[in-house]
């Protein structure tokens, strides 16, 4: 536990030691507020639905950018050799890095609370839906993070990690979309519908926090963190 905490602190500080965190937060808030408020006043309704609907697509490009360096950079500059010869287990490093990226995401999402407060200022939105929406947002973001982290373990090139992360998230996102579902073979339909990242998110957006959706996201996170650990361990396979 103390090991995970040490890695977490180091990674979290390193986000703020470099421009990454500031650029990420600024552009994320700028883009999401713009996309939201652009349509908000025409809609003439005090609700956040538009904000949450855009999020899977904004996260698609922002989240892999947060995770791409976590392993790729260690491999590139060779620090992984010191890191993985410390008396720490591989999964502890994976978890420490994951939680650090998740913490950055939480900070960013908290800063975006400006938007619901503005909406509350001009109208009377349904608070419950906004809260579940934010929970859904964090769950989906965490799943993206786990996928991006996994992509980063596979290469020492950050660009490749970034693209691979986007691609994997994209595939998992669209297989739950209606267009894909209706064109999928019958036997794939239920699988795709269950695996699609977006479908679970939209059901949370409706204001229903179903344990099945939470379990789904936790399993996606767990699965990709497990894959990451395997990928890190693979240097020692014989």
């Amino acid at each position: 536990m103390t090991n995970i905490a040490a890695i977490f602190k180091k990674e979290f500080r390193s986000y703020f030691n470099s421009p990454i965190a500031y650029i990420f937060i600024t552009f994320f808030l700028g883009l999401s507020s713009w996309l939201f408020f652009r349509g908000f006043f025409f809609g003439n309704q005090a609700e956040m639905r538009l904000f949450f609907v855009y999020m899977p697509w904004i996260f698609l490009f922002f989240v892999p950018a947060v995770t791409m360096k976590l392993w790729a950079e260690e491999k590139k500059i060779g620090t992984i050799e010191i890191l993985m010869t410390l008396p720490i287990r591989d999964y502890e490093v994976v978890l420490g890095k994951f939680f650090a990226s998740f913490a950055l995401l939480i900070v960013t999402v908290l800063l975006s609370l400006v938007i619901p407060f503005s909406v509350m200022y001009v109208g009377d939105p349904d608070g419950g839906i906004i809260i579940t929406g934010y929970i859904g947002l964090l769950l989906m973001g965490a799943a993206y993070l786990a996928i991006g982290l996994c992509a980063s373990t596979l290469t020492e090139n950050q660009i490749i990690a970034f693209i691979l992360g986007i691609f994997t998230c994209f595939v998992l996102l669209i297989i739950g979309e209606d267009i894909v579902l209706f064109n999928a073979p019958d036997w794939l339909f239920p699988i795709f519908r269950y695996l699609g990242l977006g479908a679970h998110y939209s059901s949370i957006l409706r204001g229903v926090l179903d344990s099945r959706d939470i379990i789904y996201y936790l399993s996606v996170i767990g699965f990709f963190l497990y894959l990451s650990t395997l990928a890190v361990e693979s240097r020692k396979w014989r």
Partner: protein
Amino acid sequence: MIEVRELTKSYGPTVAVNRVSFDAHAGEVLGFLGPNGAGKTTTMRILTCYLSADAGSATVAGYDVFEESIEVRKQIGYLPESAPLYTDMGVLEYLNFMTQVRQLPKSQRKERIRSVIDTCGLEGVIQKDIGELSKGYRQRLGLAQSLIHDPPILILDEPTSGLDPNQIIEIRNLIRDIGQEKLVLFSTHILSEVSATCSRVLIINNGEIVANGTPAELASQAKGEEIVHIAIRGPQAAVEAELNELAFVSQWTSVETTNGILAYQISATQESNAAEELFHVVVQNGWSLTELRQESADLEDVFLNLTDKEQTQVQKQQSAEQADDNNDDA
């Protein structure tokens, strides 16, 4: 403290480490010597649990590197080649991070950081970011990092590469000091470093250990003939006649003749005390001696002997194969 038995590791078809076995004990400075790509780094990576071997076994302080890797890692301080560090961290921040992941008790952290800063001469740069440090200081910080938990075993991969001569001497002295009570295992491809620092040398070539002993032992193994350089002022014909007479001189060549000074390179049979004998000969004949110098076989010869032989064999094989191919074509 380290026991390695029949360690083997290949990357695809290339065998990086081939049935390597050796022992090392506390109080030793063990030098890994070998040309680039000989398998030094791979061996170290296996001992530090970064990689695992395909076959064979290795124990560090009684712990198996494959089965009890966490325990092994606690015993070792490791500085990888070219000292990879987090360039976006500060020097103190980095050392502090290392005390945490090395699980040092909170009460000792400050003291240990202080101590490694002193040992590695980092006072001047503690306020800086690692990214601003010169190569020499990065190397020192890398060393500081490996010493932070006061490990009984220190494994250093080319610790002096990229340093200037003064820094190299400092690091060597440091390694010698540490080696008084701990085990230091370090790799290099610089020969003088080994004779200057190590109590024992392992020469690795093509993944195999080709020599194992103290620098002096290895040097004496290599001694076949002694080479003596001599310059004499005297009558050329008489000098050369005398050289032909001497029993211990197996061969001589005239190097140059200027202003009546005759310079020769003489090969003498081993343990003939050639330099001293030659001196007497010169004195007896009433010539004068302007230079007398004995070249002793040293590690360099051992190294060249051991590493060249195999390479020439490989080359020979290759050229033989090429010749075969050519024959086939014809």
